[in-house]
């Protein structure tokens, strides 16, 4: 995490290496009627789009990382949660109990991003040591080191088949890797500023990337050709981008405290989500479909925001973290959200909406 590296190492507050079962702290979980932050979307709620409001409650607080946590990802089957941090470590947690299962050591600099392979057997991590490492859960360690980036690697993702990896970084390139042989297949001179996010679509034929140059680019995965460039009028720095589940839209968060849903075929922004604060860090935005259809993002005001996908209204704000919420992960099947925060806090919190789980 480039931004993190610049600041002094955080003081490690009370060493609490293992998960702590939260005793449902009354103060930390916001009432559903938490006052909405100042911000535009005061539209009339669309009654059909959401028949229940999310009611996420804090379930666990996990601590173990010694420096800012940069990325969280649930494993494809939802049994594990992986976290990466500026302390050079990748940790695996049991998603249902909150116990720490494993700590992977090997990177020589902070880790900015992690990604699970689709079978959940492997994990890839992107680091400021200019490498991508592939970790095997079976082998319990590094199985590959992908070298080639000439500067910090900032983002990494697998394709759905798990035979390719895509990574981007401060050398402004996007690289496509052959996982089996550990070789770079393509080096795309993708952007003119650090690449902040890159990922495949659901069938692996497209790659989307975004960068601090404010551009979102869509690439043909096979040929490596650029197919489309999306740019907002104001050209704000892009923090993260992902395809929608059906790959017809891309969700991009930018450092003007806005998240936009783009129809990339027509190059039009079809939804705008605001209310949170994002001016400095690369905060990823995610889709959640386990309860209603939500968009979820961390925020620099130490909260997690949940919007209704269609009405763009803030439905719930999760409060409790004490620093910027840098990483957010959505459980693939249960109605859970994991969030993690920077150095003044250093905890991972797991929030669940059990009512929604039960009603399904």
């Amino acid at each position, binding site marked *: 995490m480039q931004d993190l590296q610049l600041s002094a190492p955080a003081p490690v507050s009370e060493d609490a290496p293992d998960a702590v079962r939260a005793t449902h702290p009354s103060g930390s979980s916001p009432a559903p009627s938490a006052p909405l932050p100042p911000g535009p979307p005061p539209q009339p709620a669309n009654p059909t789009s959401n028949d229940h409001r999310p009611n996420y409650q804090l379930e666990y607080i996990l601590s173990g990382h010694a420096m800012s946590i940069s990325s969280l990802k649930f494993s494809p089957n939802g049994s594990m949660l992986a976290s990466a941090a500026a302390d050079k470590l990748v940790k695996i947690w049991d998603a249902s109990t909150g116990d720490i299962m494993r700590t992977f050591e090997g990177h020589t600099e902070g880790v900015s991003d992690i990604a699970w392979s689709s079978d959940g057997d492997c994990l890839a991590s992107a680091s400021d040591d200019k490498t991508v490492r592939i970790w095997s859960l079976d082998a319990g360690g590094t199985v590959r080191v992908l070298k080639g980036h000439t500067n910090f690697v900032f983002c990494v993702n697998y394709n759905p088949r798990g035979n390719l990896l895509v990574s981007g970084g401060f050398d402004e390139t996007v690289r496509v890797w052959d996982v089996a042989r550990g070789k770079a297949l393509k080096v795309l001179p993708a952007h003119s500023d650090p690449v902040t996010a890159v990922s495949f679509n*659901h069938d692996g034929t497209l790659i989307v990337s975004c960068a601090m140059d404010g551009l979102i680019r869509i690439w043909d995965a096979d040929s490596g050709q*650029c*197919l489309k460039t999306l740019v907002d009028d104001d050209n704000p720095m892009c923090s993260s981008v992902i395809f929608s589940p059906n790959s017809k839209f891309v969700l991009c968060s930018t450092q003007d405290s806005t998240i936009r849903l783009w129809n990339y075929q027509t190059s039009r922004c079809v939804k705008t989500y605001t209310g949170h604060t994002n001016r400095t860090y690369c905060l990823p935005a995610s889709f959640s479909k386990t309860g209603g259809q939500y968009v979820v993002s961390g925020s620099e005001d130490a909260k997690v925001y949940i919007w209704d996908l269609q009405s763009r209204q803030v439905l719930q704000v999760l409060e409790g973290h004490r620093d910027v919420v840098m990483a957010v992960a959505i459980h693939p099947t249960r109605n859970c959200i994991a969030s993690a925060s920077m150095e003044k806090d250093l905890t991972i919190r797991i929030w669940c909406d059990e009512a929604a789980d039960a009603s399904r």
Partner: protein
Amino acid sequence: MNASLLNPFNITYPTAVQTSLPSQASLARFDPSGRFVAAGRSDGSAAIWDLETHAAVRWLEGHVKGITSVDWSQNSRFVLTSSKDWNVIVWDLAADFDPPQRSSTIRFDAPVSSASFHPRNSQIILVLLSTGDAYLVDLRKHHRGRVELEEVQEESDEEGQMASPRSAMTTARFDPTGKHIFVGTSVGSILVFNTRTKTMVGRHKVSGAGLMKGFDFAKSGRRLVTNSSDRVLRQFNLPTYPPPNADREYIELELEPTHRFSDPINRNAWHAMSFSPDGEWLAGGAADPATHKIYIWDISNDGQFASALDGGREPLIHVHWHPRKPAIASTTNQGNILIWHCPAPERWGAFAGGFEEVDENVEYEEREDEFDIEDESELAIRKMKQEEEEVDIDTTEDLDASALGDHLRVNGDNEEDYAWADEEPDDDIRGWKMKTVMEDEPDML
């Protein structure tokens, strides 16, 4: 998924070699998804190549003599190899390791010249031996058996006279529905068998064809192209075959080709031919001893010759069209597999946001209100209104589901044949994934 963003004006046959896979292959076939190529080698091994990484991902070592054919099950989980060593092996690629598991071995008493899976069930296998006999092998528990396909002989008038010796079977294929088996013979006839009953339901004489060397079907199953020893490829429209009846009646019909394709200059014979997925193009691999040439004909345009692809100096021995894309795999006699594609020109306009490339200069007409200064708050309200529209982030148009199998059911087919083939389905479920096996990397750690 990327198709909608790619240039829609692509011509629909490949024009250039994208990559060459050095695999010492004698033949190469795409899998039904088009992500892999199975390459059979003359030393008896076979390899599965991943076209995304252009690397061999599985080695199938089980035969001791040359591979004569390879085939894929419908969802690419099982691969079949037939060999001159008298065996047919079925491989299961879902195994977590390399080499993959052998799921069955079928032994014969003669070299196997080709074998293929039933399109609906990989446990039903059609096998042709070099002795000129064809067998249908059923590996299912309740149908287990091996049945020889027998041509019905014309009844001779004189009693006691020996029936004329049976003509040898020289090529055998399932049609795309799997309902019928088409067998070509050494005397230029096409025999049609019902797969379920193994009885002959049709016989076509093709005059002047000579020995039948190979068949290929358009995906619809209504058109057949034959390769024969007279160096002509013929395309036929197939009649509808009646369901087999108790009297074992069959259609005896001389077929007239709708098109004939040949090389008028060099009189080259053909090693293989392959339809494009939409059936509108036909690729013929010329048996030219000095060059690597693929002829492309435009079927939708009355079979006109469209192009001859030149693949260099290594002569061609096999050709197969990609199941979905304008791409071809052609094998050279040096064992290299050339993957042909249709290169899309780089569109530099794609690198700029909101930029459109035009081929010619156009006079730009500005809209009436294009440079009007609008009230910002009004603009914001209008944008808000536009954003009210619901978006669908979940549904995909799954092309695969409709493209496979079911559209073939038209034409008044009786369901019985499908029901029979679907009994005891194989484990070839859609959506299985081949595990990525990490190659050992000794210089690491």
